[in-house]
């Protein structure tokens, strides 16, 4: 395999790895958060408004790490900044 193909393969593999590992952590975190929030609502149904609001905000903040990984993997696949340079070098 030549260098250009190698770089392409590595980019795609890294993109897959990024989103795979990057979604694992937030998934566990969100599961814990939701379970804890449900338990709290079951204990104190009167406070469910506040708990739900805080739950949504914290879910979004936890999820944002997964979103960062998603953005990075999308950049790796679709608009790889190294790709243009590699193609230019290969053409020379």
């Amino acid at each position, binding site marked *: 395999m030549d260098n250009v193909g190698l770089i392409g393969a590595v980019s795609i593999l890294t993109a897959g790895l990024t989103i795979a590992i990057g979604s694992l952590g937030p998934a566990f975190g969100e599961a814990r958060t939701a379970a804890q929030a449900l338990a709290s609502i079951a204990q104190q149904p009167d406070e469910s408004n506040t708990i739900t*609001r805080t739950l949504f905000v914290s879910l979004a903040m936890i999820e*944002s790490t997964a979103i*960062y990984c*998603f953005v990075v993997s999308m950049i790796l696949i679709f*608009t790889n900044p190294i790709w243009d340079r590699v193609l230019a070098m290969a053409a020379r």
Partner: protein
Amino acid sequence: MRMTPDEFVIAEWDTVRLNATVVYTWLVMAVLVGTARIITLRLTEAEKPSRWQNLLEVLVTGMRDQIRQVSQQEPGRYLPFIGTLFLFIATSNVLAVVPGFMPPTGSISTTAALALCVLIAVPLYGIVDQGVLGYLRTYVQPTFLMLPFNILGEISRTVALAVRLYGNVMSGTILAALLISIIPFFLPVLMQLLGLLTGLIQAYIFAVLAMVYIAAATRARAREPDATAGAADSSVHQ
């Protein structure tokens, strides 16, 4: 694959380029301002307001309640900024179900601009509330050692705001495009419905986080000597 509406050039002159982000931002602005203007032309204090006035009243009182609960302060000062952020993001995310409309929040330039507004608004509200020195003192609050971390936190949370909104909206668009090529008709519709929900939640979260940041900058003073008076005040208002 087109990742942002920035790449769609709608009109082009010699030096000026009009891309889809700008055009659809103007569209959302026109929709918001036009609807609000038309409805408020016929405001009434009668027993039965028109249904459109009712809608606006529900929106405004809802936003005021949320701001009051999040910030523990009177919402009047924050409503214009926070409410505008929420309405703009929510409208552009919801309009994403309209065929041909590309949500301007799916472009990193729009979300970065919104996050920059928050970055500037936080010190402004803080300085108005506690003076320049008082606000600057919050940066060295626990000890002087925390100064670089406080500044870093300010920058990183701005980047996080921008990338979070951009990533969520952009992932919805790309998922729809991918699913249409794999399983047409059925699954994309479900994903669009989910996109409606996440779009509204993202708008809510952006506004709430902006409010939390502003409240953290303005409330530092209230926690000092007369903290009990402030707390009693806000609990009365609730």
